[in-house]
């Protein structure tokens, strides 16, 4: 169960942000912003060739109360999931499957003719689906 999900575009600007607790959202924005540095490192870093070619980047970094995971698609879209640290039951594979679901949702939304790539995503159905993925009710 994720606490916050962000979809960031190729130019590092946020396209979609959703948190379970809206009061914390601004705080998460700061954290996600700084995690972008690590994402960049991982995909453009020196030891890029030896890294695994998986889209899932793993744990980006951990805060006292939250953990931040990253995922970069081939089209350079970045997905970030923020998870509560105290939620120890959450395994890596579950995070991976959450990312895959988010990727699937995103692939669908980009095929929607009313969505212009590069703009923020404002579709209600999309927001609902992401909320469901976050709470694990899918």
């Amino acid at each position: 169960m994720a606490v916050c999900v962000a979809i960031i575009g190729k130019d590092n600007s946020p396209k979609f942000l959703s948190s379970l607790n809206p009061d914390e959202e601004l705080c998460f924005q700061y954290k996600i912003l700084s995690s972008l540095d690590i994402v960049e490192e991982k995909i453009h870093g020196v030891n890029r060739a030896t890294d695994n070619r998986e889209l899932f980047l793993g744990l980006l970094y951990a805060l006292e109360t939250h953990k931040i995971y990253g995922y970069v698609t081939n089209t350079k879209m970045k997905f970030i999931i923020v998870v509560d640290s105290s939620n120890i039951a959450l395994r890596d594979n579950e995070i991976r499957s959450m990312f895959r679901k988010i990727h699937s949702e995103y692939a669908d939304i980009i095929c929607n003719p009313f969505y212009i790539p590069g703009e923020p995503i404002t579709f209600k159905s999309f927001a609902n689906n992401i909320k469901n993925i976050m709470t694990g009710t899918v």
Partner: protein
Amino acid sequence: MCDQSVFEIFHSELVNYVIQNNETQLKNTSKTHGEDLSNLEYIGFSTGFRIIERLTRELPRFRDELDTMKFICTDFWSAIYMKQIDNLRTNHQGIYVLQDNCFRYLSKLSNTKQYLDLSPRYVTFTCGLLRGSLANLGIRSIVTAEVQTMPSCKFHIQVQRN
């Protein structure tokens, strides 16, 4: 296979529609300058830009530009045209030439010189498709095509590096 032919027919109609639209908008189409196919190419661009997310969803990350081009020649082409590109050549400095010896949309037109002058219309959508897909994968390019003998077609991709 049935749904493939639906798309082929749809593609032909799309070409017709765009050409007709051009003619109603511009009364004088100068024969010396060739037909304006920008709208058709942009339709392909928009399509390619959007569809590539779905097509690359399950694949591991591309290592480099050449890796991406190989994907285009194999998985991408198979997904759309039911076959792979027959020949890929590159000068390793941003120019790629993809050759399809039996391009799907031309194979139904002819395999002689007949209708050669109309064949640009039927490859423009694919040029846009390639450009859009590459653009979303982070490769800015200009895609053009050349047809000498139907139904074989060559796509030239020129990667723009600044």
